[in-house]
Structures are given as structure tokens and as C-alpha cells.
């Protein structure tokens, strides 16, 4: 099982979620993050003073999937999030040792879905 973390542009969330749906990947956890990457965002200016360090707003997706879904998940995310411009983001794949569904207490591959 893999724990997939993706950092994408905020305005792409809906597109990515849709793509994931298509691939039957319904379960996702979403959160707001700030990112410093290659992309040099628009500098903020207050009282004509340019703010240093451009932390841009990004959205983080976390998806736990069984091995056989990894490719599909990455495929879905990239297709939904890609604008071709710098700042599109990254996908990180971590190994997932165990999953437990809180409700009935199932574990492992069955719990993930």
C-alpha cells in the first residue's frame, strides 16, 4: 500500500478530484499549505514595501491506495493538475505499512477503500 501526497495549484482541486473520481478513487484528504518552489509568485506589496520570501498558496492532497491503484492515482493527479506552467506541483509516494478503518476496525487493504 502507498501513501500518496500531492501538492497542486489551488485552482486545480476540482479538476483533480474529478479525474480521481473517474478512476474510482473516491477517498481523499485535502488541506491548504504554502509552498516555496521554483515558481516565483507575484510579490506582495504593503506600504510600497515588497514582502520577501514568496510562499505561495498550494493545496495538498493525501491519498492512501493499494499498490495496483498507484499508477492510476498519479495519472489522475497529473492529468488534472497539469497546466504546463511552473508551479504545477509534485507528487510524493510513501510506503504505507498499515491502515485501520476506525469504524468497524477493519485493517489492511480492505480498510483503505
Amino acid at each position, binding site marked *: 500500500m502507498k501513501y500518496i501526497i500531492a501538492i497542486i495549484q489551488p*485552482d486545480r482541486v*476540482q479538476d483533480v478530484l474529478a479525474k480521481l473520481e473517474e478512476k474510482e478513487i473516491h477517498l481523499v484528504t485535502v488541506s*491548504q499549505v*504554502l509552498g516555496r518552489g521554483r515558481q516565483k509568485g*507575484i*510579490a*506582495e*506589496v*504593503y506600504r510600497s514595501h515588497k514582502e520577501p520570501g514568496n*510562499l505561495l498558496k498550494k493545496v495538498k492532497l493525501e491519498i492512501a491506495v493499494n499498490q495496483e491503484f498507484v499508477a492510476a492515482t498519479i495519472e489522475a493527479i497529473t492529468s488534472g493538475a497539469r497546466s504546463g506552467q511552473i508551479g504545477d506541483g509534485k507528487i510524493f509516494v510513501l510506503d504505507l505499512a498499515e491502515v485501520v478503518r476506525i469504524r468497524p476496525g477493519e485493517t489492511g487493504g480492505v480498510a483503505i477503500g
Partner: protein
Amino acid sequence: METTVGKARSSIFPLIFFLIFLGITALATVVAAADEAPKVDTGDTAWVLMASALVLLMTPALAFFYGGLVRRKNVLSVLMQCFLIMCLISIQWVLFGYTLSFGPDIGGWIGGLDWFGLKGVGLEPFAGYAGTIPHQAFMIFQMMFAIITPALIIGAFAERMKFAAFAVFALLWATLVYDPVCHWVWGIGGFMRNWGALDFAGGTVVHINAGMAALVAAIVLGKRIGYPDNVAPPHNLPFAVLGAGLLWFGWFGFNAGSALGAGSLATSAFVVTHIASAAAGLTWSLIEWMRHGRPTVLGIITGAVAGLVAITPASGFVTPVSAIWIGIGASVLCYLAAVILKAKLGYDDTLDAFGVHGVGGIWGAIATGLFATKTVNAAGADGLFYGNPAQLWIQVKVTLVTVVWAFVMSFVLLKIVNAIMGARASEHEERVGLDLTGHSESAYTVLD
């Protein structure tokens, strides 16, 4: 205050000449008034000044009403547009807006430039408009109306219009669309005024005018990316509620202030304004409750505003009980427009500026022709329900002319602005948000 008087006189001459064409009676009245050298009444002045402050407050209030409903990334762009208008139109009004609207009439169409830069608009009462308050008090009160009207349009093109294009459009629109209609309806000699049109506080001048411009803007600018299904919900509903609360508060100045004095008429306008708003808010909630099983906050505040819009032209002419009916009608009609009609036709009127102000304004203008009664305001007229169908016909005529005028002119102006500088933000700007791309700012920090 010798000189002021001097000034005042000097520009009363052309006025007197013009008045001759208006016939001896009119002339008589004014001259008489002038002769008696009208005295400033402290109570009336206190009320009109306070009312002016209240109406000024409505623009920041509107900014929050609108700003709370857009997405986090665009809230500042809305606040900025409202604040710019407060600054820009105020100067426009001082320099030439006021004289175009209320200056000595030219053929019923527009005011002359005699009062350019407020020349001759002094601290003595100008009996033609208000006999018991300084002329400048009337001028500043009217200025606040000129400010909020273009601001209302923002609701239609929020989240996607270029700031520069907006600024140019707002100035042109105020000058070429608002000022003339203002003159027709309220200016001495204005042709609609001479028709006997009833518009106590701006149903046609303000709401129909802005509402139609909003519809045009929504159509010309096109839909936002992702509309209707992928547009995030209101980012801060409490801000919208704050705005609505302050709008309700300010509207007392808007309507009751239009009595230009603090007496029975102001009281009557104040009372019906409040009642119509309450009735409308309640109605919208009940509609939602019936249709969805739950009334929403956005619904009740939208309804309350719709009620305030609808009562505006009628506020000096109707009874409290009529106000309830006007309020109910407002919510029913605006709900149909903002929810059913908009979905059907598919235009993207972001915050329902047309649905609420356009439709509510039209209903208000017509309703005035139905519910108006001289028992409330002897200077007014009776409406259909008080046995005078003629008034209804006048109201319909005025409404139609205003609708057409506002639609055509707004369309032309937007097209011109679009041709010259491009009215719509780029896709990139729209995706990133207008706050950052248009003003280099974000409304809220994420980290402490």
C-alpha cells in the same frame, strides 16, 4: 457670508430665465421662496447631514455584503472597487456631476454647467430643491447616491473584471448614464419629473439603472471559469451579514433622508422602509424553508435587501400595510429572478446585482403606481389602488425608458472600454485571484 450669497445669486439668474419657460406658477413659487430668503432649519439640517453620513456608510457596507460572498482570493478586489468609487465619483460630482444632474435644466435632458465645480452652490438654501437646508447639504446628500449607484453594479462582474477597465467604466457610466437619468427624474425641468413620475428615493435613478447595467455587464463579460458548478461558495458569510446589517441601517438615511427634512414625511418613509425590509426578509426565508426545508442566512439577508430596494421609490408615498405587500412582492420576484431565471438563462450575475436591484427596482417603481396615496404625502399622487390608474401608466413609462436607456448605454460603454483596454481579467489572473494579480495583496495571512 456676503460672497457666498453673491455667488449664489449670480448663478440663480440663468435659473430664473429658464424658469420662465416653465410657466409663471413655477416661477412664482421659486421666486417667492427666494424672496422670503428661506431660513435654515437646524432639525432638518441635522437630519439631512446625518442621512448623508448614513448613505455614505452604505458603500463600505455594500463592499462587505459583496466581499463576503466572493472567494477568498478576490475579496480585496471588491473592497477596492467600492473604495475607489467613493473617491472617484465624489470628485466627479463636485467638478461636474452635480451640475449635470441638478444644474439649470437644458431642454429637460440634462443640467447645464453653470454649477461647475460647485460654483454658486452655497450655504444658503436653494428653495427649488430644499428650502430649509443649505444648498450644499442637498448637494452632498445627492452625492452619496451618485457614489453607491455604480458600486451596486460591481456585484455583476465581481471576480473577473480588470481594475483599470472598471475605473474607466465607472467614471463614464456615472457621467453618461447616471447623471442624465438623475436629472430627468429629480432635476428641475427633468422630463420625467414633469411627467409626474414618482420616485421618492431612487427606484429608477439608482436601482433600475444599476440593475440593468449589471445585467449587461454579466452578459458582456461572460461567465467566470468553472461557473456554475466549480465556483467556491461565499468565503465569509458573516461579512455579508455585517454588510446587510449596515445597509439596512444606512437605508434609513437613503429613504427617510430623501424627505430632505425631519418631519412627518421622513418618519413615514423611515417606517415603511423598515417594514418592507422585514417583510421581504421573512418572505425569502419562508420560500427557502418550503423549497429546501431550511432557510439560509444568505437568503434572509438577500430578501431584506430586496425589500429595501423595492420600497425605495415608494417610501414617501405608501402606508405601513402597503409596505408589507411591497416587501413580499419584492422577495417573490427577486427570488424568481436570482434563482430560477438566472439558472435558466445561464448568465453569470455573480452576486445577483440584476436579480435584486434590477428586478426589485422595477417592482418598486410599478408598486409605487399601485400603492401610492396622498393621505401619506399630499405632494405625491394616488396610485391604481387609490383610484388613479394614470399614475401606474406614468410609472410604467418611466420604467421602460430607464430600462432601455440603461441597457443600451451600459452596453455601448462596456463595449468601448472593452475595445480600448480589455474589460476581462486574463485566465491566469482569474485563477490566481484578483487580489494578488490586481493589487499585490492578500486579504488574510495563513500563518501567524
